[in-house]
């Protein structure tokens, strides 16, 4: 059977479109299949629209809270319709950009739902395609647990809440992970009363423990209820059990953000090895079927857009015969709340669980020149570093405070390069820059 394509990529999110772009750029004949919009969840219902809305929310906050800088604004208003139009324009510009990239790299794009057949061909819209290799990058969807009332009209996931036409008065967010806390921060900033209900004893599981606590305190306008199990959702709000007692949070709108489940529809009959988390892959993103790869959220591992992109690159490199492997130990994450936070590498708890001896140091951002000049001494912010106690290699960096997400790639590069504290001390940072907190924290290590 002669293959029509060198590579078929299923899903045009950050895992799929990057894989298609890289493979096309390397001269492969690529077919990209997408059932919804170019850019996937990230561009259309995730990373990008939330950043667009949060940008407006930040301006709104600054307009009200800039008197200490000598700026007084009267009559500051937040108009959701205009903010949504801004969000939409951002999305559409990016979508067009991705479409252009596909054209530039001679990637053929087909719209439709793909099915992987047992003979490893792919069916879309009644047509059958075949290729030397296949990359599944179908992503994930918001999980909706079977809680009574979860199917009500007042319950939305990340998708629905990005197209509301009016702000709610009171919002209840079920799930205190990155998605829930980011939405909570946005709605709180534009004047909505927000309650976040989390089942675990702390929010933001990616974060080092003390940072998650500090973050909870810094997100002032939001009520956090932890160690609480939601029992029922009604038109009036959310009922939950905490410490044996049933309580309720009033809300006219409920956001369900308890987790994600892999999009496996169309891939379950081809003999793929699938676990509860998603499609099983090795460090080269290969599934159990020869020539079939899976990348991104559908693998159930490291559910982040940038992880998906890198996985896509690893799959393409493997297909092209280039040595590559997916490493998970230096993947940065960021949460774009007010204040924002980011991290990379091990938390202190993870290091203890793995039996890795560490030295740590934490510095406060108010000691940083640029941070102090732009945010003042009351604004929360800190940076913590973890270093191997014997080898002195940098193992983890955790930052809370403005521009954290723009600093963290530096930490990722240092961890990937396995730099030790003595080498990091030789790297020059611009002054003043908030990023200097990282260098200062490394100097604090004994």
């Amino acid at each position, binding site marked *: 059977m002669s293959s029509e394509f060198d590579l078929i990529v299923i899903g045009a999110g950050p895992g799929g479109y990057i894989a298609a772009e890289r493979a096309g750029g390397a001269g492969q004949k690529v077919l990209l299949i997408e059932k919804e919009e170019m850019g996937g969840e990230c561009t259309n219902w995730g990373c990008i629209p939330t950043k667009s809305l949060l940008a407006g929310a930040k301006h709104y906050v600054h307009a009200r809270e800039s008197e200490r800088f000598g700026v007084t604004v009267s009559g500051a208003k937040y108009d959701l319709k205009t903010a949504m139009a801004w969000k939409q324009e951002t999305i559409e510009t990016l979508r067009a950009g991705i479409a252009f990239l596909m054209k530039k790299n001679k990637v053929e794009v087909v719209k439709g739902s793909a099915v992987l057949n047992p003979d490893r061909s792919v069916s879309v819209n009644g047509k059958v395609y075949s290729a030397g290799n296949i990359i599944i990058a179908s992503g994930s969807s918001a999980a909706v647990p079977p809680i009574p009332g979860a199917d009500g009209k007042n319950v939305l996931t990340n998708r629905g809440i990005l197209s509301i036409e009016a702000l709610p008065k009171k919002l209840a967010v079920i799930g205190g992970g990155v998605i829930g806390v980011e939405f909570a921060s946005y709605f709180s900033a534009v004047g909505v009363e927000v309650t976040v209900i989390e089942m675990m004893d702390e929010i933001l599981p990616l974060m080092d423990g003390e940072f998650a606590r500090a973050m909870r305190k810094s997100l002032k306008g939001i009520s956090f209820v932890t160690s609480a199990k939601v029992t029922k959702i009604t038109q009036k709000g959310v009922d939950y059990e905490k410490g044996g007692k049933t309580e309720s949070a009033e809300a006219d709108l409920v956001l369900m953000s308890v987790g994600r489940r892999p999009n496996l529809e169309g891939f379950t009959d081809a003999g793929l090895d699938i676990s509860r988390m998603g499609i099983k892959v090795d460090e080269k993103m290969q599934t159990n079927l020869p020539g079939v790869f899976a990348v991104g959220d559908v693998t159930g591992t490291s559910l982040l857009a940038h992880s998906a992109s890198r996985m896509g690159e690893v799959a393409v490199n493997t297909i092209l015969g280039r040595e590559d492997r997916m490493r998970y130990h230096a993947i940065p994450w960021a949460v774009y709340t007010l204040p924002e936070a980011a991290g990379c590498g091990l938390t202190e708890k993870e290091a203890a669980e793995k039996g890795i001896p560490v030295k740590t140091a934490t510095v406060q951002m108010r000691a940083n020149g640029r941070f102090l000049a732009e945010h003042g001494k009351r604004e929360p912010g800190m940076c913590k570093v973890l270093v191997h106690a014997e080898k002195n290699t940098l193992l983890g960096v955790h930052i809370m405070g403005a521009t954290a997400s723009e600093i963290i790639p530096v930490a990722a590069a240092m961890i990937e390069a396995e730099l*030790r504290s003595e080498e990091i001390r030789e790297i020059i940072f611009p002054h003043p820059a908030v990023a200097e907190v990282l260098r200062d924290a490394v100097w604090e290590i004994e």
Partner: protein
Amino acid sequence: MATEILMPRQGNSVESCVILEWRKNEGDQVKTGEIVCEVETDKATFEVESPAEGVLLKRFFEEGDDVPVLTVIAAVGEAGEDVSSMAPGGKAAEEKKEAPAAAEPAKQEKQDAKAASSAPAAQAVSADARAGVSPRARKTAADKGVNLDGLTGSGPGGRIIERDVLAAEPAVSVSPAARAAMGAGMTAPVRGSGIGGRILSTDLAASAAPQAVASGETREIPVKGVRKLVAERMYASLQNTAQLTMNSSADARELQAYRAQCKAAPEEMGMAGVTLNDMVLFVVSRVLLRYPCMNAEMHTDKIVEYGSVNLGFAVDTERGLMVPVIRNAERLSLKAISAEAKRLGKACLEGNINPDELTGGTFTITNLGALGVESFTPVLNAPQVGILGVNGIDLKPVQGKEGVEFVPHIGLSLTIDHRAVDGAPGARFLQAVAKELANFRLALAE
């Protein structure tokens, strides 16, 4: 009075062990029960503990030495005690006398080359003792953090010259932490696990893994330990027995269906880990009882048939082939056989198998099916009279009611010792195994 540390006797079949790594240096304080060194038998690795508290006064052997069991390998006592009377006699003692003399010039040069870090120069001692190292090579090695130990010299008389050191320097980048560890004596793989194949300190810890040889280089591997044992056994087997291999295959549909059923079984049943190989082990353990002529050993003047089945199975490890034995396999359920095979296989891979578990087999199974082998000639594990090779599953045309259909078949390659077993009884045994595999669910009822 100082205390002797003896090379322990590991199991009844071990005559000598190789010292893999000294954990304590001469002059180090040691406690009772503390690990002094790691040793390798021909089948597994062990740690040797100190029988007394005190100072490690003398190490009588180098890493890599093959030492007979119950020989004195080191002495523990009070600082300054004379332990020369404890030194084991013969060749090892002579070598000892030479070592200090060889160390002298190395010390001298260490002082000359002040730029060189002390660790590589100290490591150079043992290389010096063997063939000689040019001063320029030593300087380069110190600068680049290349470990001279284990380098093959290309200079006159096998002398290590600068070219050898440069060739040994990894072509990929090396993290500072890894370079420091290499300088301290650890060896690096050709390619690491970091960014772009960068060698990280963690790659050095795992340097026991197989290393690729760079093109144009040769590598000498001493034949010892497991490799030596395999070499002797295989050669002796082919020299001293009359091997006859016959090939057949069995309908694998039931095996595959049962395997799928095990995988899908509720977790608490603990069947998910049952492999095709476990199923073959199970069937053979039952069929052997009906063919005692196959569950036997051939000695010079007698054939010994066994009433119970001690089933050996081949395990591919980094150190070489190992054959752990499942005792009384005929009495174990499929689940128990699977669990025991897993336990033994894991111990072999981790190098901590009890040598006694590698003896006493009455029949052996070797499986190359996962590697796509279609048929082969297994070599008898003499004095056993039979070994069954398991091949991959391939489609085979079979005449069905409605014409030819393709049915998955698992290949079987049985080698018998024709001195003990004739062709026909051997073939009948093979046929019985094939039949039971094809009717696996019925075989399970036995």
